[in-house]
C-alpha cells in the first residue's frame, strides 16, 4: 500500500514550496490545516472581545468601554465565534478527516475547496474593518434583529451584510464538497451504515447547511433592501413586520445551533470508544439520534421567540417539539456512558476533553430543557441564564470537542506526539476556567440580570466578578494550547501509524504523518 503511494509521489510534485503552496493548494490536508489555523486565529480575536466584555462587567459602573463600543464587542464576539471559530474549525476537521476516513484520495471538488477557504479571510477582514468605520461596527447583537439592524443601524451594516453573504457562500461550497465526497468516494465495501460516526455527523451537518444558509442569505438581502432600496420587509411604519425577521432568522438559527454541535457528537463518539478500548455502544441508534435531532431542528425555531406574542397554539407546539429533542439527545448521552461502562479506560488529554464534553454538554442540555418550558421561559428569556445555557453547549460543548479532536488527531497529522503533561494541564485550566466563568451566570440570570447590558444593578456584582476571573483564566490557558500545538508541530516523540492503542478507522492505517496523497488506490473495507 505505502509502496504504491510513494511511487505515485515520484511522478507528481509534492507540496509546492513557500506561500504558493497555501494560496493555490487543492490538497485536502493543506486546506484542512488552513481552516484550522484560521479558526484558531478567529478564536483568539473573538476571545479577546469576550475579555473586553467580561472586564467591563467585573464591577458595576462603566469603567473600560462606553456602552456603544460594548455593543459592538458583544456583536462581533458572537459573529466571530460562530462563523469564524466553530464552523471553520469543523470544516477544517472534515477536510483532514473525511477523505482519510472514507478511504478517498481527496475531497471530490478540490478547486472549490480552495475557493471556499480563501474567501473566508476577506469576509472577516471586511467585518473587522467595520470597527474603524464612521459610526463603528455592527452593534445589534449576533442575532441582528430588525429594525435595530436596519433603520437604526450604523452605516457599516452594509459591509456586515456583504460579509455574511460571503460566509454563507463558503459554507454552502464546503457542505456540497462534503456531501459529494461522502456519497461518491467511499472505499469499496464501506456502506452508509459502516461509515465512521464523524463522517455521518458531517453528512447530516452538510445537509443542514445547504438547507439553512440560503435562508440566512435571504434575511440579510431583505435587510439590504430595507436599508438601501426603500422596501419595508421589517419596517412597521411601511407595513412591514419586525417579527417576520425573527422567524426567518431563527429558521436559519436553530439548525445552525446543531450545525455547531453535530460534528462534536461524531468526534466524541470516536474518542470515548478509543480510550475505553470498547466498541461504541449503539452505533445505529447514534446515527438515528443525529438524524432525528437534525429533522427536529427545523420545527423548533420559535422557542427563541416565546415572548414576541405568538398565539397560544404556536407557543404550545414549539414547547412540545422542543422538549422532544431531549429524547434523541438523551439516547446519545446514554450511549456514551454505556460505551465507557465496563471498558478499560485511560485518561489521555483527548479523553479528558471528551468526558468533560459529555458532562458539561449535558448540563447545557438540562438548562435547555428548562428553557423549553414556556411559562418558565418568560422568566429566563434574554437573561444570563440563557447566556450560561448556550455557552455551556458551545464552549465545553463544541469548543472542547474541537480541542479533543486536535489532541486526538494531531499526532496523526504531524507525526509527533504532543506533551501529555502539558495537554492535561491545558485541560484542567480550561475546565476550571469554563466552569468558573459560566456556572455563576446561571445564578445571576435567575436572579434577574438581563443579557447584553454593559452595566448592572448591585445585587449581581459578586457573581459577575467570579465570572470575569474565570474568563481570564480560560482565555490565558488557550495561549498554552497554542504553545503545545506549535511545539508538537515543530518536533517531539514520533507517533506510530496507530497512535492510540485500540483506535479504529482507516486514518490509522496510514503513516503518521500521512503522505501528501493518501488512498490513491482505494482500500478494501470488509
Amino acid at each position, binding site marked *: 500500500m505505502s509502496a504504491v503511494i510513494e511511487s505515485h509521489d515520484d511522478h507528481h510534485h509534492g507540496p509546492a514550496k513557500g506561500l504558493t503552496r497555501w494560496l493555490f493548494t487543492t490538497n485536502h490536508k493543506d486546506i484542512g490545516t488552513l481552516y484550522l489555523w484560521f479558526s484558531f486565529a478567529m478564536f483568539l480575536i473573538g476571545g479577546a472581545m469576550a475579555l473586553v466584555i467580561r472586564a467591563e462587567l467585573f464591577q*458595576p*459602573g462603566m*469603567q473600560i468601554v462606553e*456602552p456603544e463600543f460594548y*455593543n459592538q464587542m458583544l456583536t462581533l464576539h458572537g459573529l466571530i465565534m460562530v462563523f469564524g471559530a466553530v464552523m471553520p474549525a469543523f470544516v477544517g476537521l472534515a477536510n483532514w478527516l473525511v477523505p482519510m476516513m472514507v478511504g478517498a484520495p481527496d475531497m471530490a471538488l478540490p478547486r472549490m475547496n480552495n475557493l471556499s477557504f480563501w474567501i473566508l479571510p476577506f469576509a472577516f477582514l471586511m467585518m473587522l474593518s467595520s470597527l474603524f468605520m464612521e*459610526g*463603528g461596527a455592527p*452593534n445589534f447583537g449576533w442575532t441582528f*434583529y430588525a*429594525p*435595530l439592524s436596519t*433603520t437604526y443601524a450604523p*452605516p457599516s451594516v452594509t459591509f456586515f451584510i456583504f460579509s455574511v453573504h460571503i460566509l454563507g457562500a463558503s459554507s454552502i461550497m464546503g457542505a456540497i464538497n462534503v456531501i459529494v465526497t461522502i456519497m461518491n468516494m467511499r472505499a469499496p465495501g464501506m456502506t452508509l451504515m459502516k461509515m465512521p460516526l464523524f463522517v455521518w455527523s458531517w453528512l447530516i451537518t452538510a445537509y443542514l447547511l445547504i438547507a439553512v444558509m440560503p435562508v440566512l442569505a435571504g434575511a440579510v438581502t431583505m435587510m439590504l433592501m430595507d436599508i438601501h432600496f426603500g422596501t419595508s420587509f421589517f419596517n*412597521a411604519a411601511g407595513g412591514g413586520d419586525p*417579527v417576520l425577521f425573527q422567524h426567518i432568522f431563527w429558521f436559519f438559527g436553530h439548525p445552525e445551533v446543531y450545525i455547531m454541535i453535530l460534528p462534536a457528537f461524531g468526534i466524541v463518539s470516536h474518542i470515548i470508544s478509543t480510550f475505553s478500548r470498547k466498541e461504541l*455502544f*449503539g*452505533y445505529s*441508534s447514534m446515527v438515528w439520534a443525529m438524524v432525528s435531532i437534525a429533522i427536529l431542528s427545523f420545527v423548533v425555531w420559535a422557542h427563541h421567540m416565546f*415572548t*414576541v*406574542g405568538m398565539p*397560544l397554539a404556536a407557543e*404550545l407546539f414549539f*414547547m*412540545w417539539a422542543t422538549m422532544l429533542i431531549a*429524547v434523541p439527545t*438523551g*439516547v446519545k448521552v*446514554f450511549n456514551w456512558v454505556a*460505551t*465507557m*461502562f465496563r471498558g*478499560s*479506560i*485511560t485518561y489521555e488529554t483527548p479523553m479528558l476533553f471528551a468526558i468533560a464534553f459529555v*458532562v458539561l454538554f*449535558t448540563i447545557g442540555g438540562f438548562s435547555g*430543557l*428548562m428553557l423549553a418550558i414556556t*411559562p418558565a421561559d*418568560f422568566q429566563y428569556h*434574554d437573561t444570563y441564564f440563557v447566556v450560561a445555557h448556550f455557552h455551556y453547549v458551545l464552549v465545553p460543548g463544541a469548543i472542547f470537542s474541537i480541542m479533543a479532536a486536535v489532541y486526538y488527531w494531531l499526532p496523526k497529522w504531524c507525526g509527533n506526539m504532543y506533551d501529555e*503533561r502539558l495537554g492535561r494541564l491545558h485541560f484542567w485550566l480550561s475546565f476550571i476556567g469554563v466552569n468558573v466563568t459560566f456556572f455563576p451566570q446561571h*445564578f445571576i440570570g*435567575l436572579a434577574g440580570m*438581563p443579557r*447584553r*447590558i454593559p*452595566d*448592572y*444593578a*448591585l*445585587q*449581581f456584582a*459578586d*457573581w459577575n*466578578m*467570579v465570572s470575569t476571573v474565570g474568563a481570564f*483564566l480560560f482565555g490565558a490557558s488557550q495561549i498554552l494550547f497554542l504553545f503545545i500545538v506549535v511545539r508538537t508541530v515543530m518536533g517531539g516523540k514520533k507517533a506510530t501509524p496507530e497512535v492510540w492503542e485500540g483506535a479504529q478507522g482507516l486514518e490509522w492505517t496510514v503513516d503518521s504523518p500521512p503522505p501528501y496523497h493518501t488512498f490513491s488506490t482505494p482500500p478494501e473495507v470488509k
Partner: protein
Amino acid sequence: MFNIRSTFISSFTIFLGLILSQSAFAEWNALNMTEGVTDISREVFGLHMFIFWIVVAIGVLVFGVMFYSMYAHTKKKNPEPASFHENTKLEILWTVIPFVILISMAVPATNTLQKMYADEEGDINIQVVGYQWKWEYKYLEDGVNFFSNLTTDQDEIYNQTPKGEHYLLEVDEPVVIPTGKRIRFLITANDVIHSWWVPDFAIKQDAIPGFINTAWTIVDEPGIYRGQCTELCGKNHGFMPVVVRAVTPEDYDLWVAEKKQAAFELAQLTEKDWTMEELVAKGEGVYQMNCVACHQVNGAGIPGIFPALAGSDIVLNNKPRNVEILMEGVQGAAMQSFANQLSEVDMAAVITYTRRAWGNDAKGDGEIVVPKEIVEYKENKIKI
C-alpha cells in the same frame, strides 16, 4: 504533575478569596428565580423548581453511572474490556422513560401557560410604549399619561460618586397600579423592539413596533417592583428600567387626582412670561434627562451616528427647523418626535438651552424659544 496542579488550585483559591473579600456587596444569595407576588408568578416558580429537581435527579443518575465506571473501569482495574455494544431492550427503555418524564413536565407547563394566556379586558388598562431608552405609560380609562426615565446619576454610573441602593433600577415616575384589581398591559414600541419585564409578576412581553402585545396581572400586596428592558435596543439598553408601584385602590384614586391637577398646573405655566435665564436653567435639566444619551453632555454627539448640536447650522441659525425636528423627529434616523414626551415648557426650555449652550449663543443668532411658540406650533398643525 500533581504538585503543579494542586499548587495552582490553592493559589487560585487564595486569589479568588482575596478579590471577593474586597467586594462591597454581599449578595451571594442572589441565586434563584424570584417567587414573585402574584398567583401566576408563584406557579411559574413552582414549575421552575419542579423541572429543576427532575433534571438534578437525571443528572445524579447518569453522572453517577458514568463516574462509577470512570472509577471502577480503568485500564488498571479492568484490563480486559467487555465486548457488548448494543442491547435493544435497554435502548427502547431509555427512549421511552425520558418520553414519559417529558409528558409529566409538559402537562403542568401547558396548564400554567393557558392561565397566562387567559387574556381579557382589565379593570385598568395601561398602554406601555417602549422608546429608545425610556418607557411611556398611558392609562386608557383615567387619561393619565407620562414617561418614565432612569434617574441614576451619570456620576454614579461613571464611578464618581457612590452607587445608591437601587442603582440602575430607579425612575422619575414609576407606573402606579392598584392592588387587587386586574391590570392589563398593552405593550408596543415606537422605534426598535424592547421588552417589558417585571420578574415579580412573571411578565415578560416584547414591545414591538406595529404590534400590540398584552399581559395581565393581579397584585395582592402593595410594594415597589423593579425590572428592566430585556431586548437589546441600542446603546442605552441597560439603562431603561421598569418600576411598578402597587398601592391600595384608595391611594390609586388619590394619585390619579394628583396627576390630573399637576397636568392642569403645567398647562398654566405656558401662559407665564419666561426669561431666557429661566428657560436655559430649566432646559439644562431637560437636556440631561432626554438628550445626553445621544448628543452627549458637550453637545458634540457621536460622529457618524448622532449629529453634534454644538455648532450645528440648524441650532445656530434656523429656529423654525430646530423646533420642527424636536416636534416631528427625523424620518429614518434615531431622532424621534418629542412632541408627546415633553411639555410645552420643557420643549421650549430645551431648545433654548441648546441654542445658548456650548458657545452656540456667540456663533449663531442665539434666538430663544418660549412655551407659547410651541403651543402655537401645535395649534397650527391642527389647523393644517
